[in-house]
């Protein structure tokens, strides 16, 4: 990896090569490792060390960009020249902003050395413990145990300098019988905070409880969505709904609704990179400082996420949500926190006459970006709840529904929140949710 002193030295060399042009250097460096298991044995064990240096050069109102994985002098000269040539090939664009000035960033510490250095033997031993327990119950297991050491640095010729090093570990397990499965997962910056045995036990209990799933008709049901399922819904709201570019182009569910009530009182959504359960950075990919931004407060739309470009057009300030510049996506909140309520999954079940308990969704995808209509399948533990108790497992179902409508039908949120990854990426701090009138549109064979 290219560490902080290395990044400073490489940045200085790039600024010297680029001379009089405004120049930005972005570093993305990682050292990650992952052990993957299936059928109760390790199927893959991999590690990778990669350093990417991305150089953006501004020549007047023109900009060019080039990337390289090498940081010897010859490679850096070549990359700078490529960026300069790309900039030179363009016509002037008045919308291009000068690079950001230096900023001071809030304190954030998401680096745990033990996570970066955990050995292959330790990971395999942990997996072995979990698999042995599953095997004792006649279950097959599949999953991953990963650890990452990630560095992001931004420096520019205006003197801006930002550097973040963080760690992350994930243990994820699916336990299976011949006709059922159960799943559990946890992600933490500190690998030793992950209780792999508890995760194995949850997955095993779910798989056991899911044996012999019964047919069920699609239609509207009250649902109890466990945390991972809620995270999948929030992914599309975050990516399609909360960015200023989508908002101003009329492509967000919030377009024209800032300051208006869009959800019930119980829904409060904040983007908070400093939340202890998320692994955020204190700056964005332009080097602008991040801070907690309320997006929805008690159902009222309060803010959308801005980068410098959207902020400039809207006559406001960046909220620190830039992706690497330039890009076609606009700003995006990456550290969403959905505020919890006062319930629990157990209480949600107790208070349900007839409904469906969903462990997680599979392959959710968007159909309509403004209504936020999405579709996806249930998986790894779907149960019919009758008279306040889990009655029996059911075969998986497809849902097709609007996330806006779903959030407006929230009856209860759990007090506890967890950081849960979504199927197509990202991860959010979420409670479990109970929803009235959730639309399942079809069923499948298992």
């Amino acid at each position, binding site marked *: 990896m290219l560490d902080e002193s290395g990044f400073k030295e490489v940045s200085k060399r790039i600024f010297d090569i680029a001379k009089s042009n405004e120049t930005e250097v972005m570093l993305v460096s990682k050292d*990650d490792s*992952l*052990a*993957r298991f*299936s*059928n109760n044995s*390790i*199927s*893959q*064990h*991999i*590690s*990778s*060390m*990669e350093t990417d240096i*991305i150089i953006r050069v501004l020549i007047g109102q023109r*900009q060019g*960009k*080039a*990337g*390289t*994985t090498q940081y010897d002098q010859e*490679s850096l000269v070549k990359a700078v020249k490529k960026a300069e040539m*790309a900039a030179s*090939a*363009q016509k002037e664009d008045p919308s291009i902003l000068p690079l950001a000035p230096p900023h001071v960033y809030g304190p954030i510490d998401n680096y745990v050395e033990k996570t970066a250095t955990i050995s*292959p033997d330790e990971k*395999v031993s942990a997996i072995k413990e979990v*698999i042995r327990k599953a095997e004792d119950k006649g279950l*097959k297991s*599949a*999953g*991953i145990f*990963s650890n990452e050491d990630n560095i992001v640095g931004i420096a520019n010729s205006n003197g801006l300098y930002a550097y973040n090093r963080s760690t992350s570990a994930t243990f*994820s397990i699916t336990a299976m019988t011949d006709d059922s499965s159960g*799943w559990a997962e946890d992600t933490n910056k500190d690998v030793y905070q992950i209780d792999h045995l508890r995760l194995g036990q949850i997955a095993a209990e779910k798989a056991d409880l899911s044996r012999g799933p019964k047919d069920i008709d699609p239609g509207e049901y009250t649902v109890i969505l466990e945390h991972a399922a809620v995270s999948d819904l929030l992914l599309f709201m975050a990516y399609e709904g909360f960015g200023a570019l989508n908002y101003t*182009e*009329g492509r967000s569910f919030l377009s024209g609704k800032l300051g208006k009530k869009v959800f019930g009182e119980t829904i409060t959504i904040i983007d908070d990179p400093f939340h202890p359960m998320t692994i955020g950075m204190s700056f964005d990919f332009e080097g602008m400082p991040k801070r907690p931004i309320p997006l929805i407060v008690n159902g009222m739309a309060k803010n959308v996420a801005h980068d410098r470009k959207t902020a400039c057009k809207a006559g406001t300030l960046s909220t620190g949500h830039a992706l690497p510049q*330039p*890009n*076609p996506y606009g700003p995006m909140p990456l550290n969403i926190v959905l505020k919890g309520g006062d319930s629990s999954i157990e209480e949600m079940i107790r208070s349900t006459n007839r409904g469906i308990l969903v462990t997680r969704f*599979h*392959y*959710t*995808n968007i159909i*309509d*970006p*403004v209504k936020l209509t999405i*579709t*996806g399948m249930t998986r790894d533990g779907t149960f019919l709840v009758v008279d306040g108790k889990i009655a029996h497992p059911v075969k*998986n179902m*497809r849902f*097709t529904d609007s996330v806006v409508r779903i959030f407006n039908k929230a009856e209860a949120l759990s007090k506890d929140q967890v950081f849960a990854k979504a199927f197509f*990426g990202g991860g959010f701090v979420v409670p479990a949710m109970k929803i009235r009138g959730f*639309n399942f549109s*079809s*069923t*499948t*064979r*298992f």
Partner: protein
Amino acid sequence: MRDFAAIALNSAKINGATYADIRIIIKDTEDIEVRNGEIATLDESESIGFGVRVIVNGCWGFAASSRIEKEEIEKITKKACSEAAASSMLKKEDIRLSQEEIHQTAWHTPFIIDPFSVPVTEKLDLLFKIDKILRADPRIAVAESSMNFMREKQILATSEGSLIEQTLLRSGGGYSATAVKDGDVQKRSFPMSFGGQYLGMGYEIIRSLDLLENAEKTREEAVALLSARPCAPGKKDIIIDGTQLALQIHESVGHPSELDRVMGLEENYAGRSFLTTEKYRKFRYGSEIVNLVADSTMPTGLSTFGFDDDGIRAQRWHIVKDGIFTGYHTNREFAHVIGDERSKGANRADGWSSLPMIRITNLSLMPGDWRLEDLIKDTEDGLFFCTNKSWSIDQLRYNFQFAAEIGWEIKKGKLGNMVKNCTYQGITPEFWSSCDAICNIDYWRPWGVVNCGKGQPGQTAEMSHGAAPARFRNITVGIAK
């Protein structure tokens, strides 16, 4: 580079490996996008690195680095060996590789015009012209046009003696217009969605796509969709165009036939497959006219290569023949599971930092004998769906739901009103069994998929799916409430 390869193979042997290979890769990419009159992406990047794969004590280990230096190669190789050794604490059986031919050769993607030699100014000029046409109507809120080019030079050296040098080239581009009115968002793309059409070719693909000529029609269809009727729920006969069918093939035939998925390796993330091994050569996948062929020798395919990342020569074989399931995508590790002595050569990684795994190759629905005009005339009450908008499928690949950008009613053999918010849903074998007509070779094209995700950590692969429009009877369309 060959010297570096020798360092890894020697180091692997010293550290107890019974098999080792190293892939050294130099990957160049150029990404250009114009969005609403501004350059949204103009990026030329080079990624250089190597990955070492070993078998120690009967288990795999893999490690990779972007620093190609003697000491680093030795360190990384040792790391791969220790990972494999650690994994052997929890093994059920040793990895068994199929016995294969040794190759010392080279291969490259045929092309006419090197896309990296074409001036950026020429590329930008075309994209800005398209952008201007797309934005000529104020109801178009977003116009996006792009081109992407990738060249991957790779050396694969194995401890068995194979030494293969390949240069793979991919080029493509396309655009979309998004119309917005009162909370309704409708998009039309050309030649297909999610970035356009990509093939294993040079810049000649860009000059052959008729990009400028189709921009006005694309814009007008996006605007017209705002006032079109939504697709009503119900049962219909549907004709699906090649661009939509490409993703149908990908999700409901390609992924289920990956043998590693069948064996449970993807269970925790992307899921397994209903195509369990007892169905091999017995299961009726579709109607008798359904023939699906995997082919990594297909000219211009995105998954066309000389050799896969196991060093296995490219091949062509049936996945479905006359409606019967007859083949899997396999690699050296899993070929023996179905009694095959040799791999089908479908093991690929998305770069030097990734472990090769079984990926869909170019997989195509073979053409039938219908003309599209005749097929429409032959349809009493149906819908014609074009261009993929969204996809979702369950983890065994049974229940799918796809959305298309645009549709047209078919009434008494004639195309009628435009339809928006088009979705259709089904169960994979039932759906393919309902296929009763496929258009002929004149309508057949290979369509590129450049965003195929699989694995943990995630990898993105590319492949082409040849298809001509086809008809499926009595399919559930629209969203049931």
